[in-house]
């Protein structure tokens, strides 16, 4: 099982590239010209999202530095305790919507300190693996098309994160509890 999954992980990317290029050549598409033509837009798109990224990443960095996340986690502690969420996993419930690298950092910390057999490691793995950084995705995707009125998009993202946390706890309890 592990071998098959490793094989899929290893081959997903090369297989996709190979498939696209091979079909292109078979269909007589000038692959080199089309590639470079498409690639031209890469610079423009990446530069366009800078202002949106700066706004979101600076605000999130400030929030993390202020200690607000720990305060919120502490305030929520009694509630989360009653759901059998280990204290080490608390910051993760908040940080995973805000910053992908921070979430991965917290997860690595838990994994390295508590080891492979702990319930916290498993729960943290499920929480990190099942989520995408809501704020980052919002800044990049809406920034690229200059959308400023986001309507209910953030609400959906955050509520889905909350549902993800609750179901992660439930599933983990059920499978490994």
């Amino acid at each position, binding site marked *: 099982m592990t071998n098959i999954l490793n094989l899929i992980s290893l081959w997903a990317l090369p297989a996709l590239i190979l498939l696209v290029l091979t079909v292109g050549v078979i269909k007589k598409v000038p692959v080199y010209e089309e590639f470079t033509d498409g690639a031209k837009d890469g610079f423009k798109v990446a530069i366009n999202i800078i202002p949106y990224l700066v706004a979101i990443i600076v605000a999130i960095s400030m929030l993390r530095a202020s200690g607000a996340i720990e305060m919120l986690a502490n305030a929520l502690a009694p509630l989360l305790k009653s759901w059998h969420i280990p204290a080490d996993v608390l910051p993760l419930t908040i940080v995973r919507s805000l910053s992908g690298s921070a979430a991965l950092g917290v997860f690595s910390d838990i994994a390295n300190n508590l080891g492979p057999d702990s319930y916290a490691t498993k729960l943290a793995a499920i929480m990190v693996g099942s989520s995408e950084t809501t704020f980052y995705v919002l800044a990049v995707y809406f920034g690229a098309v200059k*959308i400023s009125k986001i309507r209910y998009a953030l609400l959906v993202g955050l509520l889905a994160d909350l549902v993800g946390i609750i179901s992660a706890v439930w599933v983990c309890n059920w499978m490994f509890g």
Partner: protein
Amino acid sequence: MNYIFYLLIVISIVIGAVNGKLQDVVNAVMSGAELSVKVAFSLIGIMAFWLGIMKIAQKSGIIDFLSKILKPVTKVLFNEIPPQSPAVGDIAMNFTANAFGLSNAATPFGIKAMEELQKENKDKTSASNSMCLFLGMNTAGFQLIPTTVLAVLVGIGYKNPTEIIAPTLLVTIIAFTFAVVLSKVLQKVWKVQMINPHPNPLPEGEGIIDTEGKND
């Protein structure tokens, strides 16, 4: 977005001051700004590469093929965009890349899809129903195999790291489904405020069916 941005910053400064961490908050402004540019620049090459691959896929009909397969799904979910819109193919590519854990590729495809959705959008500053739904699908982080997490688990000597895949998939499916349903519900409640003086703003959703008929 204005209030969210303002709130995040006010909370950071006030709480930072209360915790005596104001210096850290100030440093975070600088490091955060620097980090954003680093993130954007590191995206340039990846974006260029995948947009290039995408162009070949488009010219050789792969994207048309993918959109045809996913049509029954996209037709229901994205009922407000015309079925022949290139957005359908881009959404299909984004979804496929996400599912296989190729988040590097998923982002350029996703941005491309957003650009196509923006073309169908009536108010260019306000997110359309389809855009909100597409964003919700992406923030829910649908993924078949959580590659990074598995790598960490292997690193600490976890005996059977793949046992984490099934529960993660279950959770991600729940969150994904919830995001889709919630988007569909909220789009009825939280309508676009038409600020630009369009002479005849079509009712949400119904207008698109009209255009579809004309194009046929």
